[in-house]
């Protein structure tokens, strides 16, 4: 049992991990075939993972309903939503629109629920950003002041009308031969200090991912095997 629970997963992880890493640097047909085969396997495993996620969500919410925990009615809504989507999905043959162009019940449910719900959730962020900007975005220190000024420039520069006032109203196009329109300033901010910081973050994340992957491949990091014996 220990072999099945511990050694075998570690062995599979080592072999697949090593092959996946090595094949990236080997430009041959065999390597491409291996990559395609592995990606096929990944897709199959991902499907099972989705199923596992579905079961997990079901268990969490069914427990909430059973125990009548606060907000259990929302958990009931989760099941209702899933059931409705699945039933209408099968009823519509998995199609959003019929061949004659009519929208199917499945397509209607998507357009009438998911689209407005997701759009609303995202739009609400705008309101919270406005409120947070008013209450929390303070120049309490020099660093915060620099951030504040930069943010204001980017905010204003992203509005075409500001560029119009800058170029037409104030008549500023260049300074000492260097283009100095509002869009140029914003472009420089995004393309130079921002891109430099982003690259730093990207490199950091990539190095971290490589280190973690190596630890998993070589069996040093075993948290993915789960706890217990």
């Amino acid at each position: 049992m220990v072999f099945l629970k511990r050694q075998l997963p570690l062995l599979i992880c080592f072999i697949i991990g090593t092959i996946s890493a090595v094949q990236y640097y080997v430009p041959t047909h065999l390597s491409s075939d291996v990559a395609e085969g592995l990606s096929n396997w990944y897709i199959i495993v991902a499907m099972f993972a989705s199923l596992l996620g579905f079961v997990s969500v079901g268990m969490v919410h069914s427990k909430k309903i059973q125990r009548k925990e606060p907000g259990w009615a929302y958990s009931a809504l989760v099941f209702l939503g899933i059931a409705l989507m699945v039933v209408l999905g099968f009823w519509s043959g998995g199609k959003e629109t019929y061949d004659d162009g009519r929208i199917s019940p499945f397509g209607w449910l998507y357009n009438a629920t998911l689209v407005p719900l997701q759009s609303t959730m995202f739009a609400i962020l705008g309101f919270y950003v406005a409120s947070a900007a008013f209450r929390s975005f303070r120049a309490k220190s020099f660093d915060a002041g620099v951030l504040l000024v930069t943010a204001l420039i980017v905010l204003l520069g992203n509005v075409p009308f500001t560029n119009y006032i800058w170029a037409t109203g104030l008549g500023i196009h260049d300074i000492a031969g260097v283009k100095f329109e509002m869009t140029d300033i914003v472009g420089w901010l995004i393309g130079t200090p921002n891109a430099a910081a982003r690259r730093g973050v990207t490199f950091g994340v990539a190095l971290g991912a490589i280190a973690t992957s190596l630890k998993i491949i070589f069996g040093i990091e075993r948290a993915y095997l789960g706890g217990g014996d």
Partner: protein
Amino acid sequence: MEPFFRKLLAMDRRWIFLALGLAVIFPTFIHLNLPGLKPSPNVTAVYDLIEGMPEGSKVLVSFDFDPASKPELAPQAVAVLRHLFRKKHKVVAMGLWVTGVTMAKDIVTRSAKESKAKYGEDYVYLGWKPGNFAVIENMAGDIHGCFPKDNDGNETASLPLMKGIHKLAEFDLVVSLAAGSPGIDTWIAYGSDKYHFKMTGGTTAVNVGSMAQYVQAGQMVGLIGAMRGAAEYEMLIDKRADAAAGMDAISLGHYLIVIFVLLGNIAYFVTRPRKGGA
């Protein structure tokens, strides 16, 4: 002045919500048509790339977003598709986000209908497949194997357009319209960098900063950023649509947030305790 600013700082946040709501709704009823919009170099680069490709070029458009980002990315998609169909390019559409499948199909179908493009010959919609980056890896080797059927259940191999496309590298261009990951960075890391095809794309306002590095490094050609980018693209193809109409609302929203930030800071400096004060 101090009591006024103290009152201002203690203001119920619902007043802020109301002000922003009005700033966004007002221009949708009364069009201000604020001037100043002109195509940026990044958007022009995307336009020039599509404009410069020979007629009948094969283009893959990946809808890597869901309805949450629809207001920003759908106008980009519509503008790019209009341009692609106008130039008689062959479009294969798909998506890496499951919640965007129906929305993407709707956008593609409507754009194709408007351009009188024929399904199977001028465009194909493959739909979605689970696997995130693995789908890209899979398509790099065999698109028909990865998508044996299109979104409507037709055999992919039987569609005239797909008969000439077997691998990702056979596309003349891949366009990823992405709201996050999987998206542009996934297409670059697992697709264009390894299998050498041309990449471009569009993204939301919050992601423009992260994508700038790929444009600078030459890993993608140009970038359409947010609704403003879409409005610029509409300008380039000479077809004002949703993005251009939404720019007034975006502009007023931006100005209002700037005013709130300034007011908040003025109030903070006026009301903060002085050194040596009681």
